[in-house]
């Protein structure tokens, strides 16, 4: 009798917080806060900070548990396991890098705690049929396909590739070559370069001699500036420069107006796109953090918003998985739906944007329904 009474009290105590108030949901966030990806990681942290603030302003409480992976897949996996086993979170946003996200994704179905990946681009992450892995951003091959689609109406005939000799450069050019083949473009030059060298003039002179309609570039950070400077020096002037992400989408690159003007690049997000709240998000982000938001920040903001909104009604990992699978959202990243298509599972078919630099500023130029400006073609100095 006594035992029965005690267990009743225990049950009542356990039930009490759930009955009296809507307990805040517990969500995990894995990001590269330290390590060599920390610079971009900071953008994701800022995006999430802003998302939590906005949710609190609407009266939605959330307990956020942050974990740092330092850009290392081992740490990312340990962070995910800690979050789901010790902290008892019902959903996780992150990690940032493809390497980390790929490893964590492989365990999500084992623990059955949904993982929402905000910005990792490697295709295979959502191609293995994992039920508990969702991805907001578009995978890597869309970078080249959207660029090619944007310039297809101008009927180009030839293309040259100039790219960094690393995983990102090689894989991006591979998908670009597939897309170019579909469009019937002829490859006239293929220059893979070592990063960090001071002189690319000879490679660029070779490209110039091949006289391509398009020059397709893949570079990180400062290499992009170096290449475009030397391209100007030797008078390389194709009909369009196509920069696939990374170095061609930074504010630092755009500010070099003399060399960056009219360069076309692909991105997940811009601040002048007509998706609801995008412009306002950019203003508030700038006011709070003193710099322009990158697409990573927007992706992280929207991923966290979707995760918390869905988790607040779901309240358990299983229902959260179903909620993410069934839901549709429309926010700063445009329409979001996690769908199964073309070999992908739970992949948001995110419409990537094409932007062009005009006097030091990025302007969205494609697709037409999301942009205010038109693409300027052909390229001229």
């Amino acid at each position: 009798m006594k035992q029965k009474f005690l267990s009743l009290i225990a049950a009542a105590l356990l039930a009490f917080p759930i009955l009296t108030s809507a307990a805040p949901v517990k969500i995990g966030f894995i990001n590269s806060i330290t390590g060599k990806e920390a610079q971009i990681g900071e953008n994701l942290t800022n995006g999430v900070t802003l998302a939590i603030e906005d949710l609190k302003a609407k009266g939605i409480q959330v307990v956020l548990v942050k974990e740092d992976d330092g850009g290392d897949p081992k740490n990312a996996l340990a962070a995910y396991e800690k979050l789901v086993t010790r902290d008892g979170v019902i959903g996780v946003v992150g990690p940032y890098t493809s390497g980390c996200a790929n490893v964590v994704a492989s365990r999500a179905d084992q623990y059955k705690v949904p993982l929402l990946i905000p910005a990792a681009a490697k295709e295979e992450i959502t191609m293995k049929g994992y039920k508990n892995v969702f991805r907001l951003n578009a995978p890597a091959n869309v970078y080249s396909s959207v660029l090619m689609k944007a310039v297809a109406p101008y009927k180009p005939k030839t293309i040259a590739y100039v790219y960094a000799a690393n995983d990102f450069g090689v894989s991006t050019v591979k998908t670009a070559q597939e897309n170019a083949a579909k469009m019937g473009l002829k490859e006239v030059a293929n220059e893979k370069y070592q990063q960090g060298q001071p002189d690319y003039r000879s490679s660029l002179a070779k490209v110039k001699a091949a006289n391509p309609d398009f020059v397709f570039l893949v570079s990180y950070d400062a290499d992009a500036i170096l290449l475009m400077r030397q391209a100007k020096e030797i008078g390389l002037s194709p009909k369009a420069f196509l920069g696939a992400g990374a170095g061609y989408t930074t504010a630092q690159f755009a500010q070099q107006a003399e060399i960056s003007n009219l360069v076309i690049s692909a991105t997940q997000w811009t601040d002048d796109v007509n998706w609801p709240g995008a412009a306002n998000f950019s203003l508030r982000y700038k006011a709070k953090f003193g710099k322009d938001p990158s697409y990573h920040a927007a992706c992280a903001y929207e991923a966290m918003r979707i995760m918390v909104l869905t988790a607040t009604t779901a309240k358990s990992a299983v229902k959260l998985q179903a909620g993410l699978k069934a839901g549709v959202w429309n926010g700063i990243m445009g329409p979001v739906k996690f769908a199964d298509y073309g070999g992908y599972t739970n992949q948001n078919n995110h419409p990537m944007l094409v932007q062009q630099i005009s006097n030091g500023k990025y302007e969205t130029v494609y697709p037409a329904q999301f942009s205010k400006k038109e693409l300027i073609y052909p390229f001229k100095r």
Partner: protein
Amino acid sequence: MLLFLQALLSGTLTGGVYALAGIGMSLVFGVMNISNFAHGDLMMLGMYFAYFAFTLLHIDPYVSLVLIMPTAFLFGFLMEKVFISRVIHHPHQNQILLTVGLGLIMSNTALLVFTSDPKILTTTYSSSAFNLPGGIYLSVPLVISFLITCGITAILSLFLLKTRTGMALRATSQNREAAQLMGINVAKMSGIAFGIGTALAATAGALIAPTYYIHPLAGHSFLLKAFTICVLGGLGSVAGAGVGGLIIGVVEAMSSTYISSDWKDVVVFVLFLAVLLLRPQGLFGKKGEQ
């Protein structure tokens, strides 16, 4: 033909800056018999000096050499007195550990202070070029850098050949003990040699800054080049380092034109190994020297 000439000229111009970095390293090795593995990081400091002189004081990077050279000389002179002089009679591995350590301290301090964001020095002529007849383009900043390099090398040669200090430096380089017996203050010569070496490294950094990007770890790729140049030209030979720099510059440009830029390091190091096999003392080194 056009591609060949373009590669030859841009290779020569880039090689000029490599040469300057190589000469500094070779001079230090010649006089002190020390391989300075902090040389690349001293170049990096020169880059940041030029960058801040330009952004904060609005001094053109080439004009700022007037400030950079004496400052770097003093820095090098003091560095020799405080650290390097203590290991001058020690085994090579101790000297290498010391200079590698000093380099790590410099690059990591730069990482802390300047962060890992690359800095871009943009002058009005950063991406302009002289258009030669026949469609050859020569980068304006590279041409200026090359001319300054030629000037500095000429002045350095005159200094080494004609002045008392220059002769004393050469004497120390030929035979340290004999020079000391002849009444040359070899400790002072070491300081001067290291000071000049540092000044040349910083100058090379400042010269490359307007056409490159500035990063705390930028010196590392140039350290390897400077070292290759020294060995190729003959360790300790100033003229050899000059020629070695030009050779590396041209070979790099030629291999990116005719093979692939992905392969240019391979070509450079195959050439390097070939020279070591056929002339172990380097192109300008004397037989029997270290």
